């Protein structure tokens, strides 16, 4: 089991950042790498257990299931059901915490998963930098507008 962790400071209040990211079907609106997304079976996107089925801009298809959604803790966790990444037991959590000093947001995103030992380094970079940090960077640009 390996763990990837990324964190950042977003220059906006936590409730407004949360409003942008709480939609489990909303990845195309705020991440740079998702082309389109739908929730399977026409379920609401905040129903625990719902599955988002999305296509990356590079063509890859991913299915992820919502495990936790907390408007109280600004926290969302999900698992991967299917993906081309070659990971098992993948569970990720995205969490916001208000920074009272300056009314900003501390954003954390981490994932734990299993994979072939020789792919650990590459996958850690792909997920930590290519997914989590890239999404944070995109979010920082969005809140500045």
């Amino acid at each position: 089991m390996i763990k990837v962790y990324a964190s950042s400071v977003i220059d906006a209040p936590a409730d407004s950042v949360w409003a942008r990211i709480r939609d489990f079907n909303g990845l195309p609106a705020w991440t740079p790498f998702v082309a389109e997304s739908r929730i399977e079976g026409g379920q609401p996107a905040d129903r625990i257990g719902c599955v988002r089925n999305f296509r990356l801009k590079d063509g890859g298809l991913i299915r992820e299931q919502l495990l936790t959604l907390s408007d109280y803790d600004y926290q969302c966790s999900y698992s991967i059901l299917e993906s081309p990444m070659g990971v098992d037991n993948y569970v990720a959590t995205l969490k916001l915490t208000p920074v009272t000093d300056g009314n900003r947001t501390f954003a954390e995103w981490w994932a734990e998963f299993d994979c072939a030992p020789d792919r650990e380094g590459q996958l850690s970079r792909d997920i930590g930098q290519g997914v989590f940090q890239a999404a944070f960077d995109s979010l920082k640009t969005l809140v500045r507008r």
Partner: protein
Amino acid sequence: MIRVTRSAIIDAPIERVWAILRDFNSHTAWHPVVAESAIENDEPSDQVGCVRNFTLKDGNHIREQLLALSDNDYVSTYCILDATLPMQRYVATVQLKRVTDSDRTFWHWQSTFDAPRGREQEFADLVGKGVYEGGFEGLRAFLRRRPGAPALAGGMARTVAGGTMATQGIVASRFGGPEVLEARPLEARAPGQGEVRVRHTAIGVNYIDVYVRKGEARLIEPPAPLGMEAAGTVVDVGDGVAHLLPGDRVAYACAPPGAYVGVRTLPASQVIVLPDDVDDETAAALMLKGMTSEYLLHRTHQMRRGETVLVHAAAGGVGLLLCQWAKALGARVIGTVSTDDKARAARAAGCDAVIVGRDYRFAAAVHDASGGRGADVIYDGLGQAAARENLEALAMCGHWVCYGQASGPVDRLSVESLGQKSATFSSPVLFHYTAERAVLTEMAGRTFEALRQGTIRLDIRHRYPLTAAAQAHRELEGRSTIGPLILLP
């Protein structure tokens, strides 16, 4: 119940912020409302359960107890035991998190407590604004005052910003006898990335220094200073060094040589912070020899109760430690020494039998002293001159550990000769064991603990001024010293 939460981003790496906040008594140094503070009963300020007893600048008096501390999660939890303020059931948690994309720190500070009815807001503000927000600003100001150097209570080292420091050292002007050692003015450059600059207070002398001086161990190109271990105080640290702060008392044992100097710049990864109960002279005498004993008894060979161990040079720096420690582990210890004086020292260190002689003839005596069995383990710092006798002295399936070569390197050791006893030959080097920092800290920690428990004792009988290093070498090579030698800059 009142809940107060405040959080802030601090423009410093988490290691630097945590080094300050993990010290439960550091708040006098950085918090603007704290006047005086002391940990009760002289307990360490990172001991869970310790109590800080402090006064605020407004005259109030508070006692707080540390309930939890985690270097893994960067969390500190504490409660108020009693206070002149009417607050009840106050429990607070400080948590730090790393901001990975900018090497800053997220600091979360939260508490719950009760206050008199009608005064809830007053106390929520007192805690949230006065203590937490005031604390954020106080720590920021503290970090600005000491950029990269948040030294805390205790002798503050002066931080030398950049620049080279003049110092003096003992260099081997060429390979040769003790006469090649010369005092020369030297410079200690400002620490670069991953480096630390240390002002030495005591320097250990080891037999390896003699090999280096003679050119038998080609670790230097003369002219260059000798020395593999020292203790001292951190002057300043370079970028990327999180575990050391200016003013820290530290010690190290590492290659390459260069410890016979007043001030030295070296890789911080090899330097460890000394516990309060280990003084500088002890550390300088102990680091190399103590960690050598540690790996010889726990790593190269796992000493087991009831084994017979032969320790050569049993009254030497490493020898005395090996005898004491092996005895404590339940071994039967046989030592070899060169004089009757040394025999007394070896017996005092726990040797069950001591063999006195200068002729490298000991195998028969070892068999006599072990009921004919021979030695299960031999710790050999002698080398070539003792090689044949070592093979004879070894028990069946014994382990010959050759960690030194005072009489020259062992050559022409045939595999066949080991096979005759199913013997194992090891040729370990301390610096291979200490190369990994996690192992180094474990080895140093176990060595200090052995000292603390009285398992090993150091009797430093030989102190010399740094400028008298040649005399120290003469006496060490002349086999007239007992136990460790140190140089004092």
